[in-house]
């Protein structure tokens, strides 16, 4: 293949429109699908879903156990949904001595209906290449300087199991109501790029 003879691609807007036209012509794309899908994704697949699960796990020991035993069932119990191919949600609990961090080195898989659409940094080639091999260094560069005594557990989303991190509850938030706790749980903390250490009472 003569790469240097390849003409530049049409702008992505035009190529996207071409695909849309083909799907519409073949009766594959229903009228209004793009708008409805986008609205549903933006409204229903949000970080606050996972945040509410985390806050409930912090305050409800029975739910905490259920969430660690069967994350899929725990999410469904709270009314959250999964796409067809996400068949198993595994919840990884951080402790004072263990820190979990998630990646997808082969593409950019995430439990997006539970923690929200993956951030750009998670899809970055640099993150995918480096966090498996240089976990401590990459986390430090991202602002999370873990003590040498902390065991880092990296989870590569190579199969259709999806992972989310259950962060440690910041001590300063002890006794807060569950609704308030949910507001401090960030997407980064459920991926493992943060430990919510910055949260003060």
């Amino acid at each position: 293949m003569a790469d240097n003879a390849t003409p530049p691609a049409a702008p992505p807007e035009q190529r996207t429109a071409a695909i849309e036209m083909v799907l519409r012509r073949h009766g594959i794309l229903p009228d209004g699908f793009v708008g409805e899908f986008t609205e549903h994704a933006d409204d229903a697949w949000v970080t606050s879903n996972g945040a509410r699960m985390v806050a409930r796990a912090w305050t409800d020991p029975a739910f905490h156990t259920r969430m660690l035993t069967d994350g899929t069932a725990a999410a469904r119990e709270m009314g959250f949904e999964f796409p067809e191919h996400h068949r198993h949600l595994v919840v990884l609990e951080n402790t004072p001595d263990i820190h979990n961090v998630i990646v997808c080195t082969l593409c950019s898989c995430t439990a997006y209906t539970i923690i929200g659409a993956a951030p750009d940094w998670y899809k970055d080639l640099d993150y995918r290449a480096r966090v498996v091999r240089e976990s401590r260094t990459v986390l430090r560069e991202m602002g999370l300087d873990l003590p040498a005594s902390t065991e880092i557990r990296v989870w590569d989303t190579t199969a259709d199991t999806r992972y989310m991190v259950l962060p440690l509850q910041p001590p300063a938030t002890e006794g807060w109501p569950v609704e308030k706790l949910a507001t401090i749980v960030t997407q980064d903390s459920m991926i493992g790029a943060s430990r919510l250490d910055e949260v003060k009472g």
Partner: protein
Amino acid sequence: MDSLHDLGGKQGFGGVKYPDLPHHETWEPVVRALSACALRKHLYNMDEFRHAIERMAPRHYVTAAYYERHLTAVATLLVEKGVVTHEELETLAGGAFPLAGPIGPGRLPAAPQSFAIGETVRVKNEYVPGHVRMPAYIRGKTGVVVGISPPYPFPDAAGHGMQAPGEPAYDVRFRARDLWADSCDDAMNHVGVFQSYLEKVGED
């Protein structure tokens, strides 16, 4: 296939661009929706979609943004499935529409065998020309099973549109040092490994 999508442990990359900078490309959510629509209508499955991305020309893959890769995969699959020709697509797009490279044969799963939590297992030393979800950094490496998934379609078959019997994937724990010797940070690396990619380790 050993292509550039298999990034885990590759060196020479730079700092992660963190936190995100705001960006609003209006075509990106459209691509997301179109791809979801085609997937729901079973024009292709997730493994075929992932494999189409993996087959992109290496130069295209590494320079393409996330949704550029999705756009290329959807277009490639629509052409391969006979929904549209490449020429028609380029006419509609008003210019070149680069597609991924051609697809080769897939493969069926290995004879069933099961592994238990706590069992030491080895990843087979296999070189698969088609779709495979075994990252190269664990090829031939030994680890311990820490989790078992429900059955998923075997990706090496599903990615090629073949009937894919379900099999579990095992969360296998490796020591980073067993993967990259002293050229890594100390960590426990977990990978979701399909049953067919694993073999028993004999008792010594």
